[in-house]
């Protein structure tokens, strides 16, 4: 039998599975919290209003001024350029090349957490938005009128972003692990993918307008923006302000396909966790079955692709079952309204999955990011910009116990916030308080399923 290369792109270490007793405690706490939530729940919706409070005109004027925007945009373009250049010209070793850690760890994992805490930080640094705006300003200066855009087909909603999100994860963990080596995506492939994505994004921005595409189709804007809805910082009418935490999320899912973005996020994280755990045997079986007809690399990628699609379908199915269940409760609004109306309640679960799955990778890999990868982005030993090229990653700063508690804690907190949002939304949708509570048995089942699946993936051991 061919030995399959399974490993995360950069992981020099993997987390130990959480022990059985912690799994039991985590699951018990989740159940207790859920039942308590049902019994003590409030009767008036609390998160439907944002309670907007501006942070002060002076602060907004400085932070949202054109020079600051230009500076942030330039930083974004510069860093993307460094990553692409390092990917094309730097070492093939993924852990020594700036490109992979910067794109797939620092940005891809860092922005969701930062956005949830501090608001939509990606927006000012978004390199494509910056380039698109400069191009638009240039067009206006030359043509004397703003560029004409096509009307964005609203039926597409956020589907382009949902599909793009799956494509990004596919590139990282399906295309990347298939190279016949145990180190994952090679930096050059990441750089080429970034260039292709840049071309595609700029073309879409030219067609539909910069801001429109950022709201609907630009994967990173939509994905990071989704997490920024959880926090209390935001902008409104060109002003920075504070809002009630979680209140922005209640309005986020209105465009079509928003549920697909959350489902894609949960499903791809599930696949990444399960592909080295409970799904490993299945992947190998599908691989063996396919390897009669395909070369090993193609067969493995195809097997992974089939299973990532199965994960998306399964997560979507669980959500749809919950929605259909709620529809059966007396006084329920239409199926379409329910499907859109509860999508945002899964955002905290998606964030919890990310933290549970990638927390340790992020903490360890960021040490590399801010030491040797910054000093020697190409990884060829040619530069030592900040004198930190010889530093390494200190793996002793996190004990296995610390990682376990963060993982289980994240899942439990995500579960509680998800339940909170779902209960609040139900109060807004059902005129009768008791019907609203009854409908929430269904969302409770959905949340318990996802949280216990998350715990199960953490506790799964290969031994």
């Amino acid at each position, binding site marked *: 039998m061919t*030995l399959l*290369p399974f*490993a995360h792109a950069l992981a*020099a*270490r*993997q*987390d*130990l599975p959480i*022990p*059985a*007793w912690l*799994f*039991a*405690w985590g*699951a*018990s*706490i989740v*159940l*207790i919290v859920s*039942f*308590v939530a049902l*019994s003590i729940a409030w009767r008036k919706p609390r998160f439907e209003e944002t309670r907007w409070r501006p942070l002060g005109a002076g602060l907004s004027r400085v932070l949202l001024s054109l020079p600051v925007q230009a500076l942030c945009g330039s930083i974004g373009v510069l860093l993307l350029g460094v990553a692409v250049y390092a990917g094309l010209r730097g070492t093939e070793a993924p852990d020594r090349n700036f490109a992979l850690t910067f794109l797939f760890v620092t940005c891809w994992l860092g922005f969701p957490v930062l956005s949830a805490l501090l608001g939509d930080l990606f927006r000012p640094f978004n390199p494509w938005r910056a380039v698109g705006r400069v191009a638009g300003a240039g067009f206006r200066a030359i043509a004397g009128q703003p560029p004409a855009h096509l009307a964005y087909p609203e039926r597409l909603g956020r589907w382009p972003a949902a599909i793009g999100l799956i494509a990004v994860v596919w590139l990282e963990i399906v295309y990347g692990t298939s190279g016949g*080596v*145990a*180190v994952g995506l090679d930096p050059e492939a990441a750089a080429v993918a970034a260039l292709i994505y840049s071309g595609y994004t700029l073309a879409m921005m030219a067609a539909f307008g910069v801001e429109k595409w950022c709201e609907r189709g630009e994967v990173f804007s939509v994905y990071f923006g989704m997490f920024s809805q959880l926090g209390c910082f935001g902008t409104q009418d060109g002003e920075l302000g504070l809002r009630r935490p979680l209140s922005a999320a209640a309005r986020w899912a209105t465009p079509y396909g928003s549920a697909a973005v959350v489902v894609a996020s949960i499903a791809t994280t599930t696949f990444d966790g399960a592909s080295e755990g409970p799904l490993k045997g299945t992947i190998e079986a599908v691989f063996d079955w396919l390897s009669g007809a395909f070369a090993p690399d193609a067969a493995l990628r195809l097997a992974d692709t089939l299973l990532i699609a199965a994960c998306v379908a399964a997560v979507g199915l669980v959500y749809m079952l919950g929605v259909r269940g709620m529809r059966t409760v007396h006084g329920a609004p239409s199926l379409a309204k329910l499907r859109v109306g509860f999508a945002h309640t899964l955002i905290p679960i998606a964030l919890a999955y990310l933290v549970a799955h990638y927390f*340790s990778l992020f903490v360890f890999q960021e040490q590399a990011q801010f030491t040797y990868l910054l000093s020697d982005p190409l990884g060829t030993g040619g530069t030592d910009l900040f004198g930190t090229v010889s530093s*390494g990653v200190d*793996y*002793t700063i996190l*004990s*296995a*116990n610390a990682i376990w508690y963060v993982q289980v804690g994240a899942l439990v907190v995500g579960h509680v916030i998800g339940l909170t949002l779902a209960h609040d939304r139900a109060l807004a949708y059902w005129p009768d308080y008791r019907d609203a509570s009854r409908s929430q048995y269904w969302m409770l089942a959905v949340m318990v399923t996802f949280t216990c699946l998350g715990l199960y993936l953490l*506790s799964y051991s290969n*031994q």
Partner: protein
Amino acid sequence: MRKAIRTAPVLAAILATVALTACGNSSDDETEAVTGQLKALPGAPAADKTAAGKATLERVDGTTTISLDATGLEPNTDYVAHLHTGGCDQADPGGPHFQFNADGGAEPPNEIHLELRSRADGAASATASSNREVPAGEAGSVVIHEAGTEHATAGEASGAESVFVHAGHHHDEPAPPAKIACAELEGGHAHDSSHEEAASRGGEVPTVTIRNGEPVGGVAELEFSAGEEVRFEVASDVADEVHVHGYDLMEEVPAGGTVSFDFPAEIEGIFEVELEGRKEQIAELTVNP
């Protein structure tokens, strides 16, 4: 009402805890199986050149069972197979017979022998068991010989690592009988002195054996607790660098040589050990808190 509300979660928690803890503690089977593909040896007679199949060694609760399924043999012929200590690639494929007791006899139960007769289609199978467990790493290969001729290997070593098939044709020249095919199990690394050294220190030091650049028997599992000394050896038939990820230790190993690792287990987690040049994972190091 309030009372019911308080009882429900507590009951749920107790039920969940009982159910989940029960799940967590189940399943621990002491079964371990190693399988090797049977390949014809260069010295096999023409009629046996197509030999193929597989040999499986299973250790269950202190016993050992070897089963052999062969195809492509000369039809209707008697063969014998033995468990050997060495790998298939050495000059004398399989090396000496495996013996439980080095001072014991060259017959079962001190050795493991299989007798088999090919059917009209050239396929044959056989099973042999011992009520003792062949020590880990000592079942090198299974070699098939011709039957009816005395096989003259003195089993001086205490390792079992290959099953050979030798066949019983009538040849004018006397022994040794032609070795027909060999299935590699745990790889027959030469038993060097480092092994006995380790044994004399009291602790058994696990050895990862590399054959043709790949770990014999699949990726080895090495498990330690934080604070212990991590000790293991890598015996390789190819020159490469052994890289312990996370701890970031790098040791060169020459072709046919052995390299020892000995370091404190201070980082918790699961780490890859790989042949750096070949990018081949050879072991998984687990350090538990």
